[in-house]
């Protein structure tokens, strides 16, 4: 047992960001275990990812190329990953904390009878154990856990680990695996995300609106800035409960947990349950007319003022700056 196996998801034939983040961390972890980095990809475009995997240091690529795997299902992917684990015999399995990753990891762990550290923000190999840090109690505390199984598994919170630059590397050795693609669960329909809306958990920038927007139509203030700056639209629960925007956009304890590079909150008071979903963002800007709003306690830049005048002015500035760059 040595090395790291990374579960990689593809989008349009290239590695998704979560996969690249895991691969970026995998190199030094793999050396610490005395092994190499391997990766798993599935579906009909899997082969195409080989070159890119090489640039992230992958030495062996397990490919389950059956086109039945173009659609994720728990059972087919668990079977394929279990086979990759058997052949790779890694010390560590890293799985990006995407919807599919977090569906797959616990099922796979139970099959292998090993432990998982969930949604971790840092990782280290120490004394033959995977030591990971993760937020608990909705971000109010930080736990350090040690996973001792072989392999030791973790799912990794999106945007938490630094991305390394792809280097020119040799293409990995490709190992084809084939397992049953049966699934008792059938996907009968997939409703695509609203056009042009970036995915909340994967986005580097999030612009969030709260009850301060006053009504549904005013989410246009948030959307305009999000489009201009290239970010995703977030929402407080108050706005979701009011029916102004879909629950998909909700950030917080009962919504999504996000940690973008930049989080802009406008008209959001900063209730503890909202902070639970965004306080690990790297930079936080808050716009609120109440100087006492709790959101200011965690904001790196707090602007006391009216969102209805500040957001349009900011959207203009962003457009101008983008036009110049």
């Amino acid at each position, binding site marked *: 047992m040595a090395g790291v196996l990374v579960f990689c998801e593809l989008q349009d034939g290239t590695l998704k960001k979560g996969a690249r983040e895991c691969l970026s961390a995998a190199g030094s972890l793999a050396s610490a275990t005395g092994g190499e980095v391997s990766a798993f990809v599935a579906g009909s475009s899997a082969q195409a990812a080989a070159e890119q995997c090489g640039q992230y240091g992958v030495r062996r690529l397990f490919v389950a190329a059956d086109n039945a795997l173009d659609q994720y299902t*728990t*059972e087919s992917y668990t079977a394929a990953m279990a086979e990759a684990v058997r052949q790779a015999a890694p010390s560590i399995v890293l799985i990006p904390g*995407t*919807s599919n990753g*977090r*569906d*797959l990891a*616990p*099922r796979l*762990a*139970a099959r292998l*009878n090993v*432990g*998982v*550290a969930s*949604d971790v923000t840092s990782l280290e190999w120490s004394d033959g*154990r995977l*030591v990971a840090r*993760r*937020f*608990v*109690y*909705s*971000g*109010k*505390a*930080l*736990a*350090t*856990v040690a996973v*001792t199984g072989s392999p030791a598994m973790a799912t990794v919170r999106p945007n938490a680990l630094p991305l390394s630059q792809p280097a020119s590397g040799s293409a990995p050795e490709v190992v084809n695996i084939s397992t049953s693609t049966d*699934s*008792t*669960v059938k*996907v*009968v*329909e997939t*409703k695509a*995300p609203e056009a042009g809306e970036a*995915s909340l958990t994967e986005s*580097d920038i999030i612009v969030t609106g709260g009850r301060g927007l006053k009504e549904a139509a005013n989410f246009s203030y948030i959307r305009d800035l999000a489009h201009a700056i290239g970010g995703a639209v977030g929402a407080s629960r108050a706005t979701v409960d009011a029916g102004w925007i879909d629950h998909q956009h909700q950030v917080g*304890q*009962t919504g999504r*947990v996000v940690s973008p590079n930049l989080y802009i909150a406008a008209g959001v008071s900063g209730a503890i349950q909202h902070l639970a979903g965004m306080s690990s963002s790297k930079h936080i800007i808050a*716009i609120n007319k109440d*100087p006492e709003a709790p959101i*200011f306690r*965690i*904001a*790196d*830049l*707090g602007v*006391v*003022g*009216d969102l209805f005048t*500040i957001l349009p*002015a*900011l959207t203009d*500035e*962003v457009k101008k700056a983008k036009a110049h760059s």
Partner: protein
Amino acid sequence: MNSVVCITQVPDTESRIRIGADGRHVDETGMKFIVSPYDEYALEGAIRLKESKGGDVTVVSFGPDRVQQALRECLARGATKALHVKGETSEADSLGIAKVLAAAIKSVPHDVVFLGKQGVGTDNALVGPMLAELLGYPQVNVVTHLDVQEGKLTAHRETEGAEEVLEAPLPAIVTAQKGMNEPRYASLKGIMAAKKIAIESRSLADLGLSDSEVFGQRVQFVSLELPKEKTGGRKVDGADPAAAAKEILRYIRDEVKAI
């Protein structure tokens, strides 16, 4: 149509977290405990199933004696039976918990097993799929809409910015997300009726499980700390929107380096 609902009791989401003397767990003194919020959607799903198709709703919790209060609350809302597996869960890892639940519900008739998508507090989101694997059942995870028919269910599963419609044969595991339904409160009548229902209890030994299968084997809790308190950053006056916008842009460009 019978269902089982696995519920976990967690500190009230408003609680201030203090670190316990061992430096590894929270200090529970004076803390208020609640049924984990996602488990409320799970319970509501089961109660609705009972109302439309008949059958029992058995709530199961593995934990110390305080979880009986959570089970009582579920009975008051409409669960018909309750099972308490006694044990201190603070050193149990998720797979250990799943093994306990799998053993506990073997003898309970069920077509659907409901859980929360995650326990609020530990925020693991692991137990549901682990339980599904141990029982050899299909799983539908993070469900925002559920329709149970004879022998199968249709569920909407939330993924990044999208939604999948899934069909699964029964018995199956469903983990509930906000939106699956609107949980009800307990009625006075329900509270009175619940008092007459006895909560069954079992030990790990009753279930044929050894401590080593459940505790401290795969995941160890090394330490718990409070994150560095943010002190709040710079504040600017937004009375002049144009000036404020320029200031924000400067921050985004020079410090965040996002433009």
